[in-house]
């Protein structure tokens, strides 16, 4: 790529960095990922069984993200919370860089690509989270960009894909979507002829093979099952809500894709890539970004083509003058530097029971905690084992059912407390169980605006 051609991706990256660096560290799963990574660093082995909970202690499990957890723990050990914020911003910048390159793969002019990428980057803000899932957000546009390059004739791009899948498979369970991309391009290549098909099929076989080189795989089958039957009680697994800001942008991309397809048509590749991703996006909010990213080159290219059809005699865009380019680049760079300076240096723990930590350390017995606070407790109060936490899979379905029966005060709630010999409960005050336990005479050991720690009398 020529230096001038790099300006747009670099500006997109700097813009994403500038926004991402200032986002508070708030993800509830960040803590248990950090704790897991730290455990692996300390013990020099992969964490394969539960060491954090009282309910599934010692039971084998896998979240398929061992390398991602290690990377996060190393970054944290080196740079602390500020280091995590900068690392996240760098990953968001990498995603935006790849997305900007991707957006012009179908020949879109700069202005069209810029408009579409800006919305896609703003949208992706919802997925700039401090956990291994962010690697998937970066690797998805990278792999897609490489696949487009390979389709355009770059064999070197194709060779890079299997090793990337190998790394991805160990970083995060979302690698299955990378394999799906390679499969989609292979199917399309098959339709174009044998000479196109063989290299892609080879890359697919190699990628699938490499994905098995993972000591703690979550598995494609597990990912597929998760996608087909998402656990709806987790907010990011809920159906997309297009009345929300992120859902609205997603809806805009869907309508733009549908409208442009009806006007301008497309190619088989668009169908094999976009249709499965749209289905995936409609299944759960956490998957929206994949469709938005994948639709970017199509919407940018066909949108500009439609514009030219509607305004064939419109003034063509002139290239941005060199001095102005440099000025714009410097402006974005300055924004990125300013954001790096203003990055958060501590996590935003307003929604967590910080005020209960001291009391928890002096308490004893089985603790029943809010699902969303499990990771926080694993990290801050490792001496108290959690009842449930964001790892989900080890607790599914039996422990989660018991947990929900208890906190929602179902008829068997007392049986659940007896079954697990619960001695303390750390809940939001509005939870029915918290209200009932107070009335039953459980002692308030600590209390804040958003939490109450109750002890059995």
């Amino acid at each position, binding site marked *: 790529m020529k230096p001038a051609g790099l300006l747009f991706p670099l500006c997109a990256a700097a813009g994403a960095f500038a926004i991402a660096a200032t986002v508070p560290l708030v993800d509830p799963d960040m803590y248990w990922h950090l704790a897991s990574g730290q455990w692996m660093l300390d013990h020099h082995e992969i964490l394969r069984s539960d060491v954090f909970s009282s309910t599934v202690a010692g039971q084998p499990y896998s979240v398929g993200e061992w390398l991602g957890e290690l990377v996060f723990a190393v970054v944290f050990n080196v740079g602390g919370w500020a280091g995590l914020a900068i690392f996240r911003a760098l990953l968001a910048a990498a995603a935006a860089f790849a997305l900007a390159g991707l957006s012009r793969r179908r020949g879109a002019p700069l202005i069209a690509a810029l408009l579409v990428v800006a919305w896609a980057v703003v949208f992706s803000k919802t997925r700039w989270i401090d956990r291994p899932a962010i690697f998937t957000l970066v690797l998805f546009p990278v792999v897609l960009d490489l696949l487009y390059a390979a389709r355009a004739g770059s064999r070197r791009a194709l060779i890079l894909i299997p090793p990337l899948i190998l790394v991805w498979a160990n970083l995060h369970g979302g690698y299955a979507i990378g394999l799906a991309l390679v499969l989609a391009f292979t199917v399309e290549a098959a339709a174009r002829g044998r000479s196109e098909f063989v290299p892609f099929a080879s890359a697919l076989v190699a990628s699938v093979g490499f994905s098995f080189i993972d000591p703690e795989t979550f598995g494609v089958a597990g990912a597929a099952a998760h996608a087909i039957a998402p656990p709806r009680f987790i907010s990011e697994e809920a159906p997309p809500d*297009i009345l929300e800001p992120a859902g609205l942008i997603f809806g805009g991309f869907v309508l733009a894709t549908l409208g442009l397809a009806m006007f301008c048509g497309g190619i088989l590749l668009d169908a094999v890539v976009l249709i499965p991703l*749209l289905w995936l996006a409609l299944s759960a909010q956490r998957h929206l970004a994949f469709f938005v990213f994948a639709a970017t080159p199509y919407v940018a290219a066909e949108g500009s083509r439609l514009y030219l059809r509607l305004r064939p005699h419109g003034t063509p865009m002139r290239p941005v003058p060199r001095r102005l380019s440099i000025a714009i680049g410097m402006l974005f760079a300055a924004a990125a530097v300013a954001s790096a300076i203003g990055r958060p240096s501590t996590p935003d723990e307003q929604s967590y029971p910080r005020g209960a930590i001291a009391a928890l350390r002096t308490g004893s017995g089985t603790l029943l905690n809010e699902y969303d606070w499990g990771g926080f407790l694993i990290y801050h109060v490792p001496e108290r084992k959690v009842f449930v936490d964001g790892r989900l899979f080890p607790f599914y379905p039996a422990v989660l059912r018991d947990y929900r029966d208890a906190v929602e005060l179902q008829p068997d709630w007392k049986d659940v407390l007896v079954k697990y010999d619960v001695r303390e409960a750390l809940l939001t005050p509005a939870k029915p169980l918290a209200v009932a336990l107070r009335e039953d005479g459980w002692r308030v050991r600590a209390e804040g605006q958003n939490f109450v720690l109750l002890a059995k009398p």
Partner: protein
Amino acid sequence: MRATTVLAAVLAALVGTLASTFAANDPDLFWHLASGAWMLDHGRLLDRDIYSTTMAGAPYSVGQWLGEVVFASVYRGGGWVALDLLRAALVGIATFFMARVVLRFQPQPAWAFLPIVAAVLISKFLWGDRPQLFSLALFPAVFDVLLGARFGSPRRLWTLVPIMLVWANLHGAFVAGLALIVVFVVEVWIARSSRRRLFTLVGAAAAAACVITPSGLSAVSFAASYARSASAVVEEHPADITSPAGLLFAVLLLGTLLAALVADPEMLSVRLRSPILWIGLAGPFTVLGLAHQRLLPYAAMILAPVVAGAVPTLMRRAAATAPTVPRLAAVLALVPLFAVAAVVSVVAAPRAPDLSAYPAGATTALRQLAGPVLNEYDWGGYLIFSVPEQPTFVDGRGAALFPPDVIGEFETAVGLRVGYHSVLDARGIRLVLLRPSRALAVALREDGWPVVAEQVGSWVLLQRP
């Protein structure tokens, strides 16, 4: 007569007959019936709450007075069987027009069949016995008239004015019909159609007719605000593609996208006649369907003809034209069919509503005991109908009547949130009729509220000690 019209009529007879076999069980049916009956008895509109303790006397409108009066009249005339037959008729009308619209763009039954079936199955979401059934029937009817006027003869276009006048008084979703008309008007101007002035005139007249309701302009704004708002009512949640209706809708949406991406644009343009019209229709209605799952049927009715018309172009199938059949032959075939369908419907229609989801066993006790009662939201309508002497706390009139603070009180109480005692005390609640799994029911039992009546696993009636 076109063979496709005959086929649509056959499908309507079959689906309508099928619809008659379901027992009435919609939770909102009961308060609509009670409201309609009140208006028939009093000879005036019901514009104030007379059914609840929490909003007694408060002015409100659900914008469906005529629909309620029709339902109540039918019920008075023929009981539950008559309501089953009314549902069958409206579902049949809806199916007829859905099928006719699809067959306009895909006259070959083999290609049209699956999209029609998908649209019909998704429309089952609206088969509940309440005024929305009128919208289910009128939406595809208006769509069919508009398509006929746009691509065929415009002679029926003026029928939209009386249709919209009646629809606006029957049910609030008339706004969906207005939206259809607006899209067509915009499209004829963009396409510079020779009928653009006619469409504009009819559209303006239809819009004016929609204002001739007791609510006037506010009926339109109420419906528009409804489309934008989030709600706790399940049917107003975002579309979920892991549900059967959501999955079918996703198939239609993805089928549309597949056809649009892969088919030859020129061939597609010929098939759909005006891509810009379908963009204007599919866009807004897809958004509405994704936002509120109860609107999925309208979106499906838009997408089904696109899929039916466009998917065969992927295989480069030539467009077919609908064969015609002699009118007499069609009548001779259809009259016996509809006669048989009517007889089967009358025989098969359930004689009573399905009350398995309601606390029917609690009504005797409720009549004898002093309230106020705190009841499940979904059972409010049933109580209004069956135990009118016991006003409800909340019911399916939802946001049209109950402000957020009353709904909040209800949720605080049944969810056992902090302050639930205050709600019970402030409202003087003496009876609680809830599902046994509600946190409040569990807690009150443990607090010593005696069980007055109960059906294990279904409902429990508790009385303040």
